[in-house]
């Protein structure tokens, strides 16, 4: 329903008026309206008694009272309207994101069902082939590996969409919990090791100091950003991928390095753009959605961190001198100062 305040105007006003101001306006309006009403009601008493000759005396009080009443009533009404519109807008956003997440989870679960079946059958076939005691033809193993590798792809894709929905929600805040950063990196390395091996890549990781300790941040966001970076590296590395976890006084840093051909300087500014892929600049068909790095960058920003890219392309002289490195830096302690 539109109560006479047009939507755009309301939206602008909502932005300018904060909750406290709206409350003052409402209360002030109500007081004014009450005073006005009292004046109108008391006008026969305050003014001269009504007589045909001196009607003028009663009217100023009545007129003023009525004016004050309407002014107050309008102020109160408008402030109440704006407040409710604001609440509707905030609440609406939140529930939209929540409802989408709920739908999405059900959808992801259902969509995962056939994949779980396929993956299960593939592992069953592998086990049966192993039981025969004969060597499995290389081609068959490769085919089975190919199916197996779709699982991490699918996991990342689903997670990317989920995070994308979550990023749309302005009111969502990153979680702050004690996180064993080394364990998060180790889990990612474990997940990508078989994939790297399959592609003849060497994946190594290490952390310094060896006992890295806990940081305060969002574990799932950390996992998600680094997963995207490692996934990206497996696509472009020539032989090697390195994940390094270090720290300074205020931040911890995760660098994902690969010895791939690198990124052209002119493209470096675009790597975090939504939908950008290297194929796009070469006018080839896109091999990926181009969402991974965009999400990684947006998510690290939300967590109070930074994601930087650095790359070197070979200049012809030394062919081994090319690489791409992404460095994620996040605060060691992302708790609000009061909670520390």
């Amino acid at each position, binding site marked *: 329903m539109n109560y006479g305040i047009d939507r755009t105007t309301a939206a602008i006003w909502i932005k300018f008026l904060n909750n406290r101001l709206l409350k003052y306006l409402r209360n002030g309006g109500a007081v004014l309206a009450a005073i006005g009403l009292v004046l109108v009601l008391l006008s026969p008493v305050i003014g001269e008694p009504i007589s045909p000759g001196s009607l003028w005396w009663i009217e100023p009080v009545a007129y003023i009272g009525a004016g004050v009443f309407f002014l107050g009533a309008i102020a109160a009404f408008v402030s109440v309207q704006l407040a409710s519109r604001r609440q509707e807008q905030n609440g609406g956003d939140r529930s939209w994101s929540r409802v989408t*997440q709920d739908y999405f989870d059900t959808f992801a679960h259902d969509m*995962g069902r056939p*994949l779980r079946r396929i*993956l*299960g059958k593939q*592992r069953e076939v592998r086990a049966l082939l192993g039981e025969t005691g004969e060597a499995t033809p290389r081609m068959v193993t490769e085919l089975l590996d190919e199916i197996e590798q779709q699982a991490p792809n699918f996991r990342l894709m689903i997670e990317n969409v989920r995070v994308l929905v979550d990023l749309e929600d302005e009111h969502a805040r990153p979680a702050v919990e004690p996180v064993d950063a080394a364990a998060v990196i180790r889990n990612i390395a474990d997940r990508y090791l*078989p994939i790297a091996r399959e592609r003849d890549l060497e994946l190594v990781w*290490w952390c*310094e100091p060896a006992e890295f300790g806990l940081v305060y941040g969002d574990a799932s966001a950390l996992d998600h950003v680094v997963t995207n970076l490692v996934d990206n590296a497996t696509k472009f590395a020539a032989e090697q991928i390195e994940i390094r976890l270090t720290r300074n006084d205020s931040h911890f840093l995760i660098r994902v390095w690969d010895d791939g051909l690198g990124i052209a300087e002119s493209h470096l500014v675009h790597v975090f753009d939504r939908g950008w892929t290297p194929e796009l600049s070469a006018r080839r068909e896109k091999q990926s959605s181009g969402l991974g790095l965009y999400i990684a960058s947006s998510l690290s920003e939300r967590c109070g961190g930074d994601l930087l890219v650095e790359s070197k392309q070979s200049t012809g002289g030394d062919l081994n001198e090319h690489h791409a490195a992404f460095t994620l830096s996040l605060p060691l302690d992302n708790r609000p100062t009061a909670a520390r």
Partner: protein
Amino acid sequence: MTSKGISNGQKILIVDDEHMSDLMRSVLRRLETDGFRPIVVAPEGPHVGGDDYEAQTLFAMEEERPAAVLLDVRFGEYDTDRFKGLSILKKIVERDSSMPVLMFTQYAQGPYRDTAVMASLGASSSVDFIDKLASPEEVVLRLRRLIGTAPETIRIGSLFEIDAENAAVYVIEDGKRDLIREMQGMKLEILSELAAAYFRSEGELVPFSRLERFSEGDDSRASLRVRIRELKVSLGNAVSRDFGATELIINIRNRGYRLVPPVE
């Protein structure tokens, strides 16, 4: 994949209504291969629901005394059972707050991690989440880490075994262990450091900074290189082999060293 350490038949309680699926079968098989004893919770009856799983899980915990629990989040298709796993988790932790629980879920990173159930868990409880699509190797790795017992021995491929407690390295031949007498002192310490990283995670590298204490002289890298060479020769002699630059202990360009199981 190589077997790392022996799990001594530790019992793992499996709580998942899809325990008959191929996917779960592959996990069960992997657990058995690695020396665990999976115990499947499978309530019987015409209409088995989440509550039945809950009751039987708590019963099995008392009865079997498992080393860890592998628990699914979702039970059945009913909305009431949608997150039954979380309430089972809560009950498990109430009974035994130190019980390692690996949650088998597709919500590994989703918003449901932040539910009241998770918040109510104490900092001491060892609960971890893993995606249902994870490979059986990953599941076993995570379970092993969650249980957290350091192995008495670490096996490197099928050729060597390191007994950290007794400071000894053995060569394994036809199932028998023979002590490699040459392996002691600094060589043993370097090997133990490399083996520990390898046990934690196959891709873990030991950076130079952590190995510097084993080197001497001005050029610590060169000195370390010599020590590693000696180490590889000692191990190679024991199996009458010559381990090349890309075998057993490899140098990762200016970063450090990494142990890789030797190919037989």
